[in-house]
């Protein structure tokens, strides 16, 4: 019984292998037919293809405009990123600055100095150091 089952399985496996090969051959043949069909071109005119050139020029213009936009956006985004760079500023430092009436969104070197007058020298150094590390002060 087991031998019979084993031989049946073997035959089925062999048949499946043959089917796989047949499918591969058919796919290859279909590919060849497709290439043969493509090999004949209905009409060729030895004039510069204006439409294609125009399309390429349009694409180039669009790409250049996009590059210019991206450059402009990048230039604008630098200060914004720096402003939002307060993520790296410790919360204690933000609180300390807030107590002194300084917000990280609108920070200027002069304003910081004025705001920190009431702090000790060490505290001022620490605050400025943190601000510089966070990119909020140049």
């Amino acid at each position, binding site marked *: 019984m087991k031998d019979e089952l084993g031989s049946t399985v073997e035959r089925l496996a062999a048949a499946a292998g043959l089917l796989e090969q047949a499918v591969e051959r058919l796919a290859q043949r279909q590919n060849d037919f497709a*290439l043969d069909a*493509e*090999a*004949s*071109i*209905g*009409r*060729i*005119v*030895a*004039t*510069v*293809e*204006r*439409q*294609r050139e125009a399309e390429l020029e349009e694409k180039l213009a669009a790409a250049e405009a996009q590059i210019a936009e991206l450059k402009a956006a990048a230039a604008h985004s630098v200060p914004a990123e720096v402003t939002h760079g307060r993520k790296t500023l410790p919360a204690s430092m933000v609180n300390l600055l807030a107590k002194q009436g300084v917000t990280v969104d609108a920070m200027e070197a002069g304003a910081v100095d004025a705001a920190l007058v009431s702090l000790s020298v060490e505290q001022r150094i620490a605050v400025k150091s943190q601000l510089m590390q966070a990119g909020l002060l140049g």
Partner: protein
Amino acid sequence: MGHSEGLHRRSFGLAGLPERTSSRDGLRGGAGLQMRAMAVEFPVVHGHPNRLPFEGVLTLVDVASDKAPSGSRGHRVVLTRSAAETALPSLLGMAVDYKAGWDGHDARQKCGIITSAEIDGQKLTVAGYLFARDFPEMEAKIQVDGAMGMSYELADAHVADMRAQVWTLTRATFTGAAILLREKAAYRSTSFHLKRPVNAGRRVAVGR
């Protein structure tokens, strides 16, 4: 001797065929270059007001086009010598046309006829007549030296390998040609010019 006149004489001289028939011959030059020529002889009509003889280089064989021709999906093309030779008969009797702006083909604006064709070296040259009386606006434009070129129109072109960067055309049929600005032609080395009628030259000589 003008180019087309030469073609006609050469063709007939070698084949020995009577007038108003066509012939085809291969010549082997001294440098080993083979030349193919074919012509249809038209009866001579002196002073025909609507026949203005022209000649030009239609294309180059075995040379890649300078730009991608229209219909070639952005590929530059090479017309093989073998394909051009086989297709030479299909050129005879086909029309030349022109388009307003001189930048392309207008197959319905047929302004002349091709009566002879020759492959000499890499040049496929043609000659024939323009319908000068029907298209009086052409003559002034065409006479600007070196400005005008030609462009062929092919049908049923066979491409050896569609995946190649430059398509090689191994078989094709010529269905027409256009006169246009050289800069608008896929082959920049094409040319087109009018032939001076032999009689006009003689008149000038006598006048001196």
